[in-house]
């Protein structure tokens, strides 16, 4: 039996385990036990991604709290036809993490007069040691099949939260080049990871 979400909690029917989509459907009906189950399945991913993007663990904790509250509030509007619950949750997590980085940066720019310095964000080059898992291994391996420029662009866009226009500026490349590089890189990752289905 597929223990989809790590924890086996009886669902409406009184048996089995639930997919994230099934949990979302119950959460949309204000089912708090389904929400707790979803939390247990996703807390490491939500917190881990937030931490990677915002860097500071206590800020990442705030972001994760915000994200889970938003999952609860917006569950009524989740539409499984547009993508998986996993993609929806991680997209939301990424967006809120980037918002946090940007508002911190804006505050820094207000406080500092040294514009040249304050516009530099912490470029992500170091891979932190976190718990190893196969997704991590797989992602690393597939990232290594990208060209260096694709890898760099994808990393700056996703893990450092840059817009593609900022990536272009940082790398000194034309905008259309970065657009296609991000697209080609992600397509290559998709094909390598075998997740197109």
């Amino acid at each position, binding site marked *: 039996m597929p223990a989809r979400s790590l924890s086996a909690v009886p669902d409406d029917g009184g048996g089995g385990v639930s997919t994230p989509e099934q949990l979302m459907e119950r959460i949309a009906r204000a089912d708090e036990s389904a929400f707790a189950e979803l939390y247990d399945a996703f807390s*490491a991913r939500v917190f881990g991604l937030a931490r990677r993007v915002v860097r500071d663990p206590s800020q990442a904790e705030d972001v994760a709290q915000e994200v889970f509250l938003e999952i609860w509030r917006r569950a009524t509007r989740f539409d499984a036809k547009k993508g998986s619950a996993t993609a929806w949750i*991680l997209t939301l997590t990424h967006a809120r993490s980037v918002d946090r980085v940007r508002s911190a940066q804006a505050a820094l720019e207000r406080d500092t007069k040294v514009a040249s310095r304050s516009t530099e964000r912490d470029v992500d080059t170091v891979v932190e040691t976190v718990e190893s*898992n196969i997704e991590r291994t797989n992602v690393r391996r597939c990232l290594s099949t990208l060209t260096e420029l694709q890898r760099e662009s994808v990393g700056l866009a996703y893990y450092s939260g840059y817009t593609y226009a900022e990536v272009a500026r940082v790398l000194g490349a034309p905008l*259309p080049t970065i657009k296609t590089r991000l697209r080609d890189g992600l397509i290559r990752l*998709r094909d390598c990871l075998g997740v197109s289905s």
Partner: protein
Amino acid sequence: MTIRPLGSGRSSDPEIHLLTGARALGAVDTAEAQSFDDHLADCPTCAEEYRSLLETAAVLGSAEATSAPRALRRRVLQDVSHTRQLPPDVTSLQGRRPVWRRPVTWLAAAAAAAVIATGTTLVVTQSDRTMTAAEMQSCVAAAPDTVTSTPTVGSGGDIRWAASCKAAVVQLPEMGSLPADADFEVWQVDATGAHSVAIAKKSADGSIAPAIVTIRMTGTDKSIAVTREKAGGSSSGQPTTEPIWQVEL
């Protein structure tokens, strides 16, 4: 990788379809994101590509998983217990309808992907149908019963599988050379025989794609094997050569 036009939208930017990658990575500013999202409505090919890239970006995010502080769980569950949910109907601002009087049409749409199952068997069937490759990978990454098996034929790569997930995640090694008109074919061997699960292609730089193959286990799985077959895979649907890589499960 070649870039081909993906349909034509009403957008003023003729190249807006190229934003699928940037948008999936959350790297497009708000105004442009809006025109891109509008464009998706006119371009099903773009929408499909965007969707698959969103799933890919989610794997990049999932790969960063790290245990959250314990106190967070309590805070989140507390928040939720006194937070009202948004009304499901985006266009309606009435917003005060109790949850049990939500529009039936919306619930029907949500139920399309997540039918409320009533028994163990049904749940299993439903879960199998809705579990994507990315979800199976996450499941195997976190399952307590995940086992790593290494090849008995060939070298490099491995398979991590969990009976509780009914899934196996195959890490293919680079696998050596291949004639120009051939591909690698991945086979799932169970009690009923060999079933083709993937065609893996070798690129000029020596890498193999897909490098990760996710397999839904049948319950009688014996092994996963790779053979060299003609480009596009064996036409008989059965392996025609001896395995060059094999892992027993």
